[in-house]
């Protein structure tokens, strides 16, 4: 049931922010709609760890500044290659992912794509590997050195041993 409460609060917050109507009747209708949609989503079984990954969602602020810094750095790197395309030394590399949930793996692959210079081409859920296309050797090294893997793992709930 916790997912229903969280999704209702999130959606009502979004409604409050976007509607701009603050009369009691409309507020009540908005809250009721948010609750109704959440209950329907629950009934459809889409409010699970994949549909609403609460852990990852709430821990996201921990890595926001870091990811923005990484994005800015690699933007400059790619611009340097665009100015001199002969510097491009594209490669396909395999990155091992330490995440143990589907949502965590997707977050890792999305972070790789979000930093320019590296694009995740294929995600292998069985072997926990992501095949990455990197624009130069430096971009590949930055992805394979495990620093991003560690940051994304911070977002996940720690794995209960034996589970």
């Amino acid at each position, binding site marked *: 049931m916790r997912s229903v409460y969280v999704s209702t609060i999130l959606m009502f917050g979004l409604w409050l*922010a976007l509607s701009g109507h603050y009369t009691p009747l409309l507020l009540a209708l908005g809250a009721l709609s948010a609750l109704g949609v959440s209950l329907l989503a629950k009934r459809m079984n889409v409010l699970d760890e994949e549909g609403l990954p609460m852990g990852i969602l709430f821990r996201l602020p921990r890595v926001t500044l870091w990811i923005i810094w990484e994005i800015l750095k690699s933007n400059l790197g790619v611009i340097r*290659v665009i100015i001199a395309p002969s510097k491009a030394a594209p490669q396909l590399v395999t990155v091992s992912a330490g995440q143990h949930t589907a949502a965590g793996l997707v977050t890792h692959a999305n*972070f790789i794509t979000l*930093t320019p210079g590296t694009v995740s081409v294929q995600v292998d859920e069985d072997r926990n590997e992501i095949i990455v296309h990197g624009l130069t050797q430096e971009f590949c090294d930055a992805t394979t050195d495990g620093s991003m893997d560690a940051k994304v793992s911070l977002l996940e709930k720690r794995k209960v041993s034996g589970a």
Partner: protein
Amino acid sequence: MMVENIVTIIAIFSLSAGALGVLFGALGLLRLGDVYQRMHGAGIIDTGGAGLILFGLLLASPEWTVSLRLVLIGLLLGLTSPTATHAIARAAHFAGVKPLIKTSPDAPIEKGANE
């Protein structure tokens, strides 16, 4: 008055840098070698370019409702644009498009194996 001026100046710089980023991204789309490399150029447009423009608009926004909407747009872009980029890369990979590969600084650039 002073603070407002400084914020406006930062906003102008951020907007200009974002516009430059979009320009370089478009240049990258034209200049880089193959479909996978061009995707990195497009990556600049929807991270650095769009991000800096949104940040500039955020500083210049007159009301908090506008700011909130800009933040929401930023979050949505951060979620959807890598997903779309990955979809294109994955489609190219599975369609058998072989990327150009250059393994060492001196090696010639050549068509690589598609794993």
